[in-house]
């Protein structure tokens, strides 16, 4: 089933079927009006410490919501709430318009199948090879190896790691582990992908590669995503460049400007569990809030 559903996720250099008919062509689709993710007045506290303070926001279809903020600001907690790994004390969490707030662990299994998750350190299963890590979800669904292997190879080609298919996680560099984590998250072609600081601790070129993968998902595959980060480079890439397929069928990245203006990336900045900014990167850079200015300057 996954093999047939996931035919649209492309290899680099191939034209995506979704590329032509996603964000721009489908604006009249009523289904697109329903946000992929929505938080309504979410409150979460551990003991006396408020982690998320009445948080409300939406992630629209095909949109990337970049969540910025310092450590301990509640960024990663948002992702755990979307996955149902944590439950809010108050408020509602909706995925594809479905209120998952009170879902049981068994009910969440079906929701999680629609969501891909990229963890900070990759969170690969140490005892499994790259192949088995990427194939994990399909193996759990009981698919045969004949169906699983082409899917795994396609995903590893997407992240340019097909050569590492037989390696163990311990043999991989930090960047490779993150890319395998992305391949694992994308198997089954989820339409929602959550990135939890995927570039933390990586060198700039590798961080750029991870951002390019996120841009490809956003612009060519119509994937909605939350991209949690505290690195301004990520913001620059994701908010100023977009992926297109050129005449040779190659995926290339262009800067927004005269041809196109990016409208499918929004920024949300958090501080101590509260949203202190929500909007475009251009507005963020003009914000006068001292915390935001300090964050943007880096000192």
């Amino acid at each position, binding site marked *: 089933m996954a093999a047939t559903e996931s035919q649209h996720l492309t290899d680099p250099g191939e034209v995506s079927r979704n590329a032509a008919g996603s964000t721009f062509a489908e604006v009249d689709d009523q289904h697109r009006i329903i946000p992929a993710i929505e938080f309504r007045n979410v409150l979460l506290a551990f003991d006396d410490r408020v982690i998320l303070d009445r948080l409300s926001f939406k992630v629209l279809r095909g949109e990337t919501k970049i969540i910025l903020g310092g450590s301990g600001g509640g960024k990663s907690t948002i992702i755990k709430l979307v996955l149902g790994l944590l439950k809010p004390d108050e408020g509602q969490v909706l995925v594809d318009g479905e209120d998952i707030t009170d879902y049981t*662990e068994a009910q969440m299994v079906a929701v999680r199948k629609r*969501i891909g998750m990229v963890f*900070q350190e990759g969170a690969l299963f*140490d005892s499994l090879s790259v192949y088995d890590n990427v194939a994990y979800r399909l193996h759990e669904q009981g698919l045969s190896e004949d169906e699983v292997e082409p899917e795994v190879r396609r995903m590893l080609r997407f992240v340019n790691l097909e050569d590492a298919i037989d390696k163990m996680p311990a043999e991989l560099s930090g960047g490779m582990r993150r890319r395998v984590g992305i391949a694992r998250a994308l198997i089954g072609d989820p339409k929602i992908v959550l990135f939890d600081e995927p570039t933390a601790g990586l060198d700039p070129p590798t961080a750029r590669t991870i951002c390019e993968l996120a841009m490809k998902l956003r612009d060519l595959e119509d994937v909605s995503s939350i991209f949690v980060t505290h690195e301004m480079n990520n913001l620059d890439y994701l908010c100023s460049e977009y992926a297109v397929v050129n005449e040779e069928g190659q995926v290339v990245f262009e800067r927004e400007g005269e041809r196109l203006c990016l409208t499918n990336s929004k920024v949300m900045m958090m501080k101590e569990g509260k949203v202190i900014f929500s909007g475009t990167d251009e507005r963020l850079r003009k914000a006068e809030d001292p915390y935001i200015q300090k964050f943007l300057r880096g000192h």
Partner: protein
Amino acid sequence: MTARAVGGIFKGPRYFTETIAQMDAIGVGSLTIIMLTGFFTGGVLTIQTFPTLAFWGQQGQTGRLVAVSLVRELGPVLTALMVAGRVGSAIAAELGSMTVSQQIDAMRALGTDPIRKLVAPRMLALLIALPLLTVIADVVGIGGGAFAATSLYGLSIGEFLNSVREGITTDDILGGVIKPTCFAVIIGAVACYKGLNTEGGTVGVGRSTTRAVVTASIVVIVADFFLARALQYILGMPAQ
């Protein structure tokens, strides 16, 4: 968690490969230490009891005393303690490492219930392996006792084994299997719980491992007291 794990044993998806791997790690992997423990415990029981029994002219009952002590008490308890140390620590460390490196979260995010995938196979493997290991420890322990009795004190092997046969009842053997079954649940539940609730990075893994072994060992010893008393009533063993 224990109830969900036991439920996971009977409901799908079932992880047979994982269960077999765990049985190999827990059962086969513990065989050497269990046999060594059993053999020398049986031997030392003979060394400690033979002189006293000989003082009363009852040295022929050495086999009986060694066998009853091993089958009713020392076999199940010592095996459980050894398994708690070796396997309980390994389970807590493995699950603890998976927890702090977000592998458990990843598993849940990928739509897998960690209780079914990780806890249930370990519980099932312990439930099968621990009684078997206990029986092996009992048999090897009696062998150790026989070795000490014949080589150190010149007791004939026939006399030793005859007293073993006379001393052991079906209820003893039944009780000696019921106890490790309960201990298996204790060790599995404590080790998995401590592992899955690990916090604080690699330091936390060490802390969880230590706590798992200490808690499981204490609970096994305390549970043994109550089980011994309960079995006396249930199986009609001599209580006075």
